[in-house]
């Protein structure tokens, strides 16, 4: 029964002396310790997976909406493909995964995917519009709780909310979803994209969130990005920079967050650190199995239908172009990989 590979000389005794100790810590602390130990070596600890572009709503600023069509949806990864990739991500060491869309609950197999991942030991976050959450789903999430559920909440009136989502009744359904989440004691964050349509409601939404339950968090963003088909009509909803600054300055917490973010960013720049973790400890997968640096950078992708996650993350992702990577600013697209490997790569303008 003895395994000669186990335990080596004096090391064995010292290990035994520590055997009563169980390290009890948050994932955040553990991850930080791991990064420090790895000293910049890429490790895929956290990822975001856009499981589908399907959605029951058609938010005016949504970048995935153009791909919410039957033809595009038919190209999306199947349950079997997702499970295989999940196994590969798990084996590569990923701990935290965010499932997003589109609307993840618009996939009929989403709970199966979610539960499979949960039972593998991933720490899971769900980005959702909240409108498809039913009592059955809430019960299931209670049994297999996520680390966080982030619900998009862009308006405080039926009129503004539905004007943004283009979905009649979406405001009421979202509130019902939020009530179900809170009713189960699940962790919740509401988040708003500031736009011309809801410019006067942002601070009121924050106040509304503050009046929910103590642990409900709130995020405000102003990031509007081109749609996946390249169209830029979304920018008509973008708030001028001065107006965003005015909103942030009108609220003590927003202002403090902004100051803190800017300070951190400057520190990282001063230390020569990469501003984005994409390809370093983060990754993004789109609905078709393309492994990318992040959701905001899809210039290059590695096809997980043809290659392995480990190869894609370690051999290709670090070379993908990224303006947030200090040394990569302004770099032209470069071709990497040859032969079969080249087939796994895609490039978009």
């Amino acid at each position: 029964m003895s395994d000669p590979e186990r335990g080596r000389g004096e090391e064995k005794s010292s290990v035994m002396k520590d055997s009563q100790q169980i390290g009890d810590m948050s994932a955040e602390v553990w991850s930080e310790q791991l990064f420090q130990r790895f000293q910049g070596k890429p490790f895929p600890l956290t990822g975001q997976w856009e499981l589908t572009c399907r959605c029951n709503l058609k938010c005016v600023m949504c970048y995935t909406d153009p791909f919410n069509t039957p033809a595009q949806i038919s190209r999306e990864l199947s349950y079997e493909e997702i499970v295989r990739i999940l196994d590969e991500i798990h084996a590569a060491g990923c701990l935290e995964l965010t499932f997003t869309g589109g609307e993840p609950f618009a996939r009929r197999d989403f709970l199966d995917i979610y539960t499979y991942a949960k039972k593998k030991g991933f720490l899971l976050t769900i980005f959702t519009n909240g409108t498809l959450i039913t009592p059955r789903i809430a019960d299931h999430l209670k049994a297999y709780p996520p680390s966080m559920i982030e619900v998009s909440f862009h308006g405080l009136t039926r009129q503004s909310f539905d004007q943004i989502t283009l979905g009649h009744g979406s405001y009421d359904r979202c509130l019902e979803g939020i009530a179900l989440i809170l009713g189960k004691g699940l962790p919740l964050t509401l988040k708003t994209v500031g736009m011309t349509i809801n410019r006067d409601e942002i601070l009121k939404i924050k106040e509304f969130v503050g009046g929910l339950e103590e642990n409900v968090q709130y995020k405000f963003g102003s990031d509007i990005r081109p749609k996946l088909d390249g169209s830029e009509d979304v920018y008509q909803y973008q708030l001028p920079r001065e107006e965003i600054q005015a909103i942030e300055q009108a609220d003590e917490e927003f202002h403090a967050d902004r100051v803190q973010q800017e300070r951190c960013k400057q520190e990282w720049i001063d230390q020569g650190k990469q501003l984005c973790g994409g390809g370093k400890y983060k990754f993004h997968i789109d609905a078709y199995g393309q492994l990318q640096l992040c959701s905001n950078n899809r210039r290059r992708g590695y096809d997980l239908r043809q290659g392995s996650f480990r190869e894609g993350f370690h051999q290709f992702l670090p070379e993908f172009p990224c303006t947030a990577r200090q040394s990569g600013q302004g770099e032209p697209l470069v071709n990497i990989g040859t032969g079969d490997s080249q087939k796994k790569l895609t490039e978009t303008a």
Partner: protein
Amino acid sequence: MPTNTPFLKKQYSRNEQFISRQIADEFLLIPLSNQLNGENRLFVLNEVGARIWELIDGGRSVQQIEQLLLEEFDTTPEQLEEDLLRLLDQLQELGAIQIVAE
């Protein structure tokens, strides 16, 4: 010689609400219900702790686990028994294992 006979006869099973994972060279126990004041809580076991976790199967007694570990690690029965007692107590306190026979 080991002295804690009642303890050695105990058999433990793992709580399926705890998922074990090896990430990098670390062995983690991750509770399925991982919320604690909004934090994701992890438990990190060292090499021996990880091996003990593997050996807990609801059938082996502590004594059988001890015998296997004595073959695999350079330690004394007394020291090992003390370590086992502490670790199993802690795992039980966390709810990661439960006694199925004693």
